[in-house]
């Protein structure tokens, strides 16, 4: 507990910024521990959406009137915030997408229409979310390339020795998750990127969990692509960012056609716009993109280091408390782990846990977490998962552990 009270951030002040947290569910104050699925939104983000619609809603990049100029500026300021957030070298490398799923689809699709050929290999890991499996399977089906999978060790760490063995001159793409949403494992992506690069492969990092828990520097990582979803980083749903290395994006074909992505269209031929607009067809999600900036600034103000420290303190405290429950086994015991606690209780079904906890006002996630192949590898149907955010408190961890104990007793 002492390490928690020494935390540098003022959780109670932070909580005040999140209106949704102050409510009762089934007669009990809400404990929201489903942050890996989506995080709650601070007032500044909600306010930014409201301001946009009330004061300067307009389509961007073409308008000659005041509102259009304001909206365009706000949209591009958000791109700059995202550039800073990932430390990309230029805003040309920051593409707005709906989220990580769209980002993977974009890259996999564009690569399948350019680089990937029969006999090539795409290397992913066994702990990928479905979003970082299915688009690559589709790309492989289309091109005749083969999907290879880096196994996961029993403790939930990536088997990096196997990764070495699987990487070859045939590997054209390595696409791995930065932090596992189901296990919390933080993968050694920098090392993997270095090795993949040495074989001439392109690298894609799924930062759905990574971007919210860790400081990200795409230049230091030296990856070709890095993607995150706004809604997990305290921003609205439907907006996300794909970082792409300029030299790669310039070579790739466009993804969707229409609107913003053109330079000139004739019925015979279309020339494409410059980066990043080449990849932003149609009217983008302007409001949510603008609000993303406020979420990024909110995170920057608190500081990623302080957030990580706080979330890991909650993780350790929660792990300690729940480990005292009979028959409970923590799934995912990687040495490097983010604020995600997955577990199973012997003889108790995760769905029953989820339902009973909900009745006690505690929101957690149960199931396979959209990582069915991983669950199969681990021999599990699913797990219960508590995941922490900057606004969670040690008191909430205690309430969660108490509720869990009670649920387990009711079910045995």
């Amino acid at each position, binding site marked *: 507990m002492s390490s928690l009270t020494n935390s540098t951030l003022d959780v109670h002040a932070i909580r005040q910024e999140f209106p949704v947290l102050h409510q009762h569910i*089934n007669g009990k104050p809400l404990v929201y521990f489903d942050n890996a699925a989506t995080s709650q939104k601070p007032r500044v983000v909600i306010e930014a959406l409201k301001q946009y619609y009330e004061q300067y809603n307009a389509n961007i990049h073409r308008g000659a009137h005041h509102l259009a100029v304001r909206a365009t500026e706000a949209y591009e300021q958000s791109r700059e915030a995202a550039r800073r957030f990932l430390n990309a070298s230029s805003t040309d490398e920051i593409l707005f997408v709906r989220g990580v799923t769209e980002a993977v689809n974009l890259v996999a699709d564009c690569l399948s229409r350019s680089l990937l050929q029969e006999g090539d290999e795409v290397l992913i890991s066994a702990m990928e979310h479905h979003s970082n499996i299915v688009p690559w399977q589709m790309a492989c089906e289309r091109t005749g390339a083969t999907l290879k999978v880096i196994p996961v060790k029993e403790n939930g760490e990536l088997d990096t020795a196997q990764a070495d063995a699987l990487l070859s001159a045939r590997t054209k793409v390595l696409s791995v998750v930065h932090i596992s949403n189901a296990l919390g494992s933080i993968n050694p992506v920098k090392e993997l990127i270095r090795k993949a690069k040495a074989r001439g492969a392109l690298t894609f990092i799924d930062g759905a969990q990574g971007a919210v828990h860790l400081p990200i520097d795409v230049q230091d990582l030296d990856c070709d692509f890095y993607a995150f979803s706004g809604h997990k980083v305290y921003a609205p749903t439907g907006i996300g960012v794909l970082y792409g290395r300029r030299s790669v994006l310039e070579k790739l074909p466009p993804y969707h056609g229409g609107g913003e992505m053109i330079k000139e269209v004739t019925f015979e031929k279309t020339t494409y716009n410059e980066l990043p607009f080449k990849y932003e067809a149609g009217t983008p999600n302007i409001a949510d993109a603008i609000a993303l900036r406020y979420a990024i600034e909110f995170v920057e103000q608190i500081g990623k280091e302080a957030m990580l420290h706080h979330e890991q303190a909650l993780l350790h405290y929660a792990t300690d408390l729940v480990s005292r429950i009979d028959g409970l086994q923590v799934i995912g015991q990687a040495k490097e782990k983010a604020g995600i606690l997955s577990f199973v209780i012997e003889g108790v*079904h*995760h*769905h*029953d846990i*989820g*339902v*009973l906890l909900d*009745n006690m006002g505690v929101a957690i996630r*149960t*199931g396979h977490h959209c990582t069915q192949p991983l669950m199969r590898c681990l021999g599990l*149907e*699913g797990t219960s998962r508590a995941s922490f955010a900057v606004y969670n408190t040690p008191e909430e961890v205690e309430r969660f552990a108490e509720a869990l104990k009670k649920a387990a007793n*009711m*079910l045995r």
Partner: protein
Amino acid sequence: MTIEEIQQEIAEDFALFDNWEDKYAYLIELGKQLPPMPEELKTEDKLVKGCQSKVWLHAYMKDGKLYFLADSDALIVKGIVSLLIKVLSGHKPEEIARANLHLIEDIGLKQHLSMTRANGLVSMIKHMKAYAEAVNSQP
């Protein structure tokens, strides 16, 4: 008793509970008491797919009435399953097909049901009715 009468009786039972804990403890108990479904019947084609828990459902006709056997790997779901069996099993197919099932709302589990993808219960009810309709439409 008719399907409607059984539903009313169950709703009255549940009305006796004044807190969620007793209600769920009772459901869990019902789940535990559900007669086991023979393992050989728990085949892939008997599986009603839900996102979180598995439900197996088997139906058979006897003396002009339709009977159900079911099981689930989650206890609370199993409790609800046992209620559905209590209500629907052993009636004529045409009665089952046109039954108005309001039991789950009546006992205050609508919220549970609205987690539709989560538990496969909605699919289970659909399957039970589909069995009844299939039998019913046979010449």
